[in-house]
């Protein structure tokens, strides 16, 4: 075996190194809790953030031989330059999640298990890396499991809280169910083609056979669970509500983003057959229409902000998958760009929800009434993030929506774009409801004035910079576009 192949997996190795260092640091830095002595926060959070930050910077853009497609381990591992970009986006998202988690992890009930949080999160990230760079269905499946099983532990992290434990149980059951569906689909595809390599499947599969169609449908259903598209979304609201807010942020952005990118690459590579690609385009069409419309209608009625963000995330996932339609290079750029923009805006909103929850324990939309009077800066930042989510210029959200719609329009799905556009108006309505609560409504018992911790401030600063600059500066899109590829 040629061990130099490991050098192609630079990003994975670097992340693994980060994980090991944090593991050792956690081992030596964390002291046994003693009776009567309050446990202090320690340095583990700082170490984790710095290391992940270094890892992010080190692998930010494809360079040093990673600009081209490389294949390692007989095709199990395939890497394209675009994947580095996607991984970078996920890195930044995870970094922001780490920053906003800091205050929450320093609470008394969590302080002894800080290290676990960072490790588990990074393991799911590693799983997503493998999933993204896989060239074989088994590799893909291992990555997927590595990305989803530890997530259940994260969802149930506040295990002393009934809802959190319940959410964890729900999540793991549905994750396993969807994995089973997906695996069954993969086995059917194996039956139809006799191979599990994406490229070979792409060459051998024929759209006429029932086996391959069934395999495709089951594969898409499994991915639909992971991305939480309607009608596979039923776990989302409960899980998001029950999970700790930080984990909800991670779930709604990072894990969803990785899954939708993988959906695109696998569909493009393994199901490129003309008849099949027509089939998955039709399937996606209805999934998107259902996701966007139904999630929007449900979001309007929500009172709990985390539940609200869950439905908002489902409809945003619909827009994200809109870029997959047609499998064009333009769509791929739009997808990655949308992911980046959605990530900063959504995590910004979650950072604020989290810091408000940590400081006042309030999580309902009504509680946010009059937030502008007491915490004007937070209210303003929240407004910017919500505007970006709703697609209001000059914030980045409008650019990303424009590009996604443009890609889908160019791929020939004009009426789908029109439906999606009408839905953006509904989504604007419910995002404005929160703005209205913060600015216009008054409250007799408003959220008290508080100072957020420095980690949260840094997280908010990153999100703010993203929301304001990523759109206006065209370079981001231009740069991502140089790596995009589509179906032939």
């Amino acid at each position, binding site marked *: 075996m040629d061990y130099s192949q490991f050098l192609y997996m630079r990003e994975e190795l670097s992340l693994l190194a980060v994980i090991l260092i944090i593991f050792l640091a956690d081992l030596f830095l964390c002291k046994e809790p003693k009776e009567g002595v309050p446990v202090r926060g320690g340095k583990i959070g700082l170490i984790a953030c710095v290391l992940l930050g270094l890892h992010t910077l080190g692998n930010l853009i494809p360079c040093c031989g990673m600009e081209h497609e490389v294949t390692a381990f007989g095709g199990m591992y395939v890497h394209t330059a675009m994947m580095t970009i996607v991984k970078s986006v996920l890195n930044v998202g995870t970094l922001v999640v780490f920053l906003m988690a800091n205050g929450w992890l320093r609470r008394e009930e969590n302080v002894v298990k800080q290290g676990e949080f960072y490790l588990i999160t990074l393991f799911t990230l590693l799983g997503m890396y493998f999933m993204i760079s896989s060239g074989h269905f088994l590799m893909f499946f291992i990555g997927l499991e590595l990305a989803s099983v530890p997530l259940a532990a994260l969802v149930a992290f506040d295990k002393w809280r009934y809802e959190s434990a319940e959410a964890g149980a729900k999540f793991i059951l549905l994750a396993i169910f969807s994995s089973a569906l997906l695996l069954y689909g993969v086995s059917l595809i194996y039956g139809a083609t006799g191979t599990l390599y994406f490229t070979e499947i792409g060459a051998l599969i024929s759209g006429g056979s029932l086996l391959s169609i069934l395999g495709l449908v089951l594969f898409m259903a499994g991915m639909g669970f992971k991305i939480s598209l309607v009608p596979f979304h039923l776990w989302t609201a409960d899980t998001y509500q029950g999970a700790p807010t930080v984990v909800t942020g991670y779930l709604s952005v990072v894990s969803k983003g990785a899954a939708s990118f993988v959906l695109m690459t696998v569909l493009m590579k393994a199901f490129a057959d003309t008849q099949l690609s027509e089939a998955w385009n039709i399937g996606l069409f209805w999934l998107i229409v259902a996701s966007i419309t139904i999630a929007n209608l449900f979001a309007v009625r929500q009172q709990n902000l985390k539940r609200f963000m869950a439905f908002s995330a489902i409809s945003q996932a619909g827009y994200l998958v809109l870029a997959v339609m047609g499998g064009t290079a333009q769509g791929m750029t739009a997808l990655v760009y949308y992911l980046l923009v959605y990530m900063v805006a959504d995590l910004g909103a979650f950072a604020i929800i989290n810091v408000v929850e940590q400081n006042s324990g309030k999580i309902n939309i009504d509680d946010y009434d009059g937030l502008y009077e007491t915490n004007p800066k937070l209210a303003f930042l929240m407004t910017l993030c919500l*505007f970006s989510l709703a697609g*209001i*210029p000059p914030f980045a959200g409008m650019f990303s929506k*424009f590009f996604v719609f443009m890609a889908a*329009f160019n791929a020939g799905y*004009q009426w789908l774009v029109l439906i999606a556009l009408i839905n953006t108006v509904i989504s*604007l309505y419910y995002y*404005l409801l929160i703005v209205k609560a913060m*600015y216009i409504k008054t409250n007799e018992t408003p959220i008290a004035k508080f100072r957020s911790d420095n980690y949260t401030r840094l997280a908010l600063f990153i999100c703010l910079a993203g929301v304001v600059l990523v759109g206006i500066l065209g370079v981001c899109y231009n740069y991502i576009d140089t790596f995009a590829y589509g179906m032939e």
Partner: protein
Amino acid sequence: MNFLSIFVLVPLLMLLGLWLVKGQKGIRCVMMAGSTVLLITAAVLTVMFLQERAVNDAEMLFTASFDWIKPLHIKYSVGVDGISVAMLLLSAVIVFTGTFVSWDMNKEYFLWFTLLSAGVFGFFISIDMFTMFMFYEVALIPMYLLIGVWGTGKKEYAAMKLTLMLMGGSAFLMCGIFGIFYGAGGETMNIVDIANQTNGAHAIPVEVQHIWFPLTFAGFGVLGALFPFHTWSPDGHASAPTAVSMLHAGVLMKLGGYGCFRIAMYLMPQGAQDLGWIFLILTGISVVYGAFSACVQTDLKYINAYSSVSHCGLVLFGILMVNQVAATGAVIQMLSHGLTTALFFALIGMIYGRTHTRDIREMTGLMRIMPFLAVCYVIAGLANLGLPGFSGFVAEMTIFVGAFEHADTFHRFLTIAGCTSIVITAVYILRLVGKILYGTATNEHHLKLTDARWEERFAVICLIFCIAALGSAPLWVSNMIGTGVAPIVDHINTFVTNASFNPFF
């Protein structure tokens, strides 16, 4: 950097300044300095434009273009023609006077107000569809907070209704932009390039035009208060704070008419020729219906809002006639309506600030109590109903003369119907003026009220001066506008109407 970008840069600097300064005085200084700079720039631009136009007959002058998002051919392109220069001048005047009218407002108000004006200026200077659309939406969203926070009456409802309806319009619009862009080959977003089929653009297929023309026109039409989509306008204007009503009715509604003309009709001329009749009927309804509705209102702002629906209807009415005279008239009507309506809203705001009621049944004899405001109100009313000497007369006259050039029954009928609006306008304006200004004051409380303060007088006088100037010396403006209208109208008229689409022919 092209000097047109000053129009966007100055508001951005104002935002920065507002963010940094402390105290009411500092805010006023920043706003006054900024809006004066904008006004002077607009005046300088007008002079420069007229000089340049004399020697240069390119369609757009002072153009510049910078690559922005290269893979999608999106550029930041700016340029002006006669129409946009007139609109920039109007916007600068309204922003300038609006600053004086909202003298006592706080910092956040001015932040959103300035952002709104940045959007408006950006919209009028850009000639790239994406840039234009972006500025269009930038101008829309601050309205939500401006009305929601600082408005009066049922402001939450009005703010939400206005925002959602306008954003719904822009959803159609975005689809229309994609339709135009990909219909013309997907090579350029530049409006002039697409119209003249240069730089890789080819003619947009007729079927494509038939799909996207109605959507694009309706999308802009929502903002231009086109008949079934006008309902945001009365509620929004009635609830908005004074300067926001001024800016919104005075400038923002013009974005609709401008966009209909510059994007929907100019870029899809065949669609405009074939399907324009639908919208012509709708605007005809707007004109008459708006005027009738104004007759039965009892709230000062509602009266003016419905009057705006009627007058903005005339703008779309003029451009849909697709001839040089009517379209020039339509653009003058944009100017004229912008100025008169802003004056009206300013005066209503001042009166309301004193009487704390806008119900005309509760006010009489204000002429004795606040003579300055009352006289100005009469002037505004006369300007609004199109008295010769004021801008409204020139505009409406030109539109109807142009509209009468069409000799067929369909256009004749609509023209005559439109003309009746002048009479109806006179009815509600004269009744209103008689009711609230003349007679004896019966309300004890009203007797103690004061007349206008200096900054209010200044703003009102500026507006009246502009209205009178436009009304007495309209030629240079209409010439300037005519140079901008001519290429567009000629371009649309090279395409022949397919009469089979119009059942009324």
